[in-house]
């Protein structure tokens, strides 16, 4: 078999892993026009971090764009070092023989605009001041994030993607692609996502932002030379993390189990295992993630509303040709199935080619990241059908008349 990845010096790892990967960076908008943002602001230059897996075919018709969620990054699959225990955030779905099969497809994932893992964001250096942008970084939208991805693909010479896929906020970006670049998208997989945040969703984001901005170390966002608002960010993450899991899932994992003790402390200590778990999750995240990015990205989600009224909806959907596949999980309460159905309903009203599937999983919102056979099969079936049709079109085109 012709596995490009299996020849890599990563033989100790699982046969299904893509193996060793590296993050690449490119600087765009260096000269000429800057990137125009939805807010009216402009940005220049912009660095983009991205990773690719698999091999592009000769006509570049096998490209799959992966969009990451709030806290993700460009590292979607494989490992950066052979001894690394953690793989990329969607390693279960990207790799040889996996749903986004790197034996067949050329998969690309870039860090979102405003991010803190290589792509320009509030923590990047503002060339005008030679200091981090901090809160001088312009507010961004999901549309801006897609716009920068489009610029990256243009730079790489990719005119069209076979499919664009993402979960949660990544699903919003995938939807944005189908709306903004209808000629460039064959299919869109919009997973555990929503056409707009509800008041409750915005409320969760607002509390997260409050936790960060109320941290004494926040210093109005200008904290890059001193202590960072890690405590605020960690509280924000702890709360968000609860919304990513189902009540049942969390209870099954921890129950009322006590952490390293036989009895209640009767003091304000970490009594329960779930407390300790959340503290760990929060503090790990607080150390590695940029608090300003968290503020900016949650804002971009709050603003996302591609179908605010019937006229705009009709106009935006008029040119959409992509085959859309909306997926949700039954225990997800961050963006529950009714949000996905809301999107499907809008798309159906405008007679778009849309499929919808709900999967059973105990893991809540996080389900889209975790292994699941039926979900895997649906993704694989959808993608492979798109590609089979693409190959058939090419076959008919190539055949002499």
């Amino acid at each position: 078999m012709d596995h490009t990845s299996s020849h890599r010096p990563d033989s100790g790892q699982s046969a299904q892993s893509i193996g060793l990967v590296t993050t690449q960076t490119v600087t765009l908008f260096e000269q000429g026009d800057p990137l125009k943002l939805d807010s009216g602001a402009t940005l220049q230059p912009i660095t983009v971090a991205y990773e690719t897996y698999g091999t592009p075919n000769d006509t570049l018709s096998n490209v799959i764009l992966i969009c990451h969620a709030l806290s993700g990054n460009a590292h979607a699959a494989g490992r950066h070092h052979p001894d690394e225990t953690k793989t990329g955030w969607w390693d279960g779905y990207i790799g040889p023989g996996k749903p986004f099969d790197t034996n067949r497809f050329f998969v690309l994932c870039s860090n979102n605009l405003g991010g803190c893992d290589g792509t320009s964001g509030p923590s990047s250096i503002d060339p005008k001041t030679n200091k981090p942008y901090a809160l001088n970084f312009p507010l961004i939208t999901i549309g801006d994030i897609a716009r920068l991805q489009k610029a990256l693909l243009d730079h790489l010479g990719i005119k069209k993607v076979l499919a664009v896929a993402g979960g949660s906020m990544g699903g919003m970006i995938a939807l944005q692609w189908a709306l903004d670049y209808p000629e460039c998208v064959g299919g869109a997989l919009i997973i555990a996502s929503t056409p707009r945040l509800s008041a409750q969703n915005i409320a969760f984001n607002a509390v997260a932002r409050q936790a960060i901005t109320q941290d004494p170390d926040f210093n109005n966002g200008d904290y890059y030379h001193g202590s960072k608002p890690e405590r605020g960010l960690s509280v924000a993450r702890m709360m968000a993390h609860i919304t990513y899991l189902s009540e049942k899932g969390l209870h099954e994992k921890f129950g009322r189990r006590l952490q390293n003790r036989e009895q209640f402390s009767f003091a304000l200590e970490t009594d329960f295992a779930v407390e300790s778990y959340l503290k760990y999750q929060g503090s790990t995240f607080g150390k590695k993630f940029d608090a300003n990015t968290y503020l900016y990205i949650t804002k971009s989600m709050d603003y996302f509303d591609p179908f605010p009224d019937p006229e705009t909806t009709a106009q935006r959907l008029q040119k959409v040709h992509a085959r859309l596949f909306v997926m949700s999980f039954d225990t997800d309460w961050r963006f529950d199935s009714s949000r996905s159905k809301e999107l499907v309903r809008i798309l159906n009203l405008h007679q778009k080619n849309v499929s919808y599937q709900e999967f059973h999983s105990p893991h809540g919102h996080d389900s889209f990241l975790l292994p699941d056979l039926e979900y895997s099969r649906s993704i694989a079936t959808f993608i492979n059908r798109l590609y089979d049709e693409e190959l058939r079109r090419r076959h008919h085109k190539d055949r002499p008349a």
Partner: protein
Amino acid sequence: MTQYHDDIAPIQTTDASDLRIDQEVIASLVADGARVLDLGCGDGLLLEYLINNKNARGFGVEISTQGMHACIARGLPVYHGDIDQGLSDHTDDTFDYVILSQTLQAVRRPRFVIREMLRVGKKIIVSFPNFGHWNIRVQLLLSGRMPKTPMLPYEWFNTPNIRMCSILDFQDLCRQMEINIIEQIPLAAWGGLPRSPLKRHLVRILPRTVSNLLAPVAVFLLEKRKG
């Protein structure tokens, strides 16, 4: 190593001989270029046939995961859910035809479903197993137990078929709901299509007067009564 695309059927076109008899009859009722909603579309065979051979624009509703995967593999737009949900998403007269094939007997609220079908579709096509068939009558008479047939193979306690009716019952319902019966086609056989064109034809020419006794399955083309 799981090669997900190994077990996905290569793209092929369906022709009429792949269809079940009632599916072929349904297909023959659908006009070219129509917009079709298939409720309980199963593996999507009929829908794919209508799209490929009748230039239909189709949409399916399916509850089983297996059916979902089959439809996605055929490239069909399909909604995972029950029929009520699949209907409520659509505005009035969205479809030229709404199809309910061999599913009426399994829905909890048949009248509601038919009314909803007539709302979103200009015409509706319903096929169902005929409980008035002689085989069923004889079984109940002689054995005194719930009848079973190849089409209705379940035990009384686990059957999904909770709303069995005969052709006469269905005609009564149409009258009661003031629904126009445009066409009714009782079929003399059930299952895969006989390959011979003659037999295929013979299946469809059962006289109306004896159909409630002799047809194991019937197909109805219906519309709202006008005015």
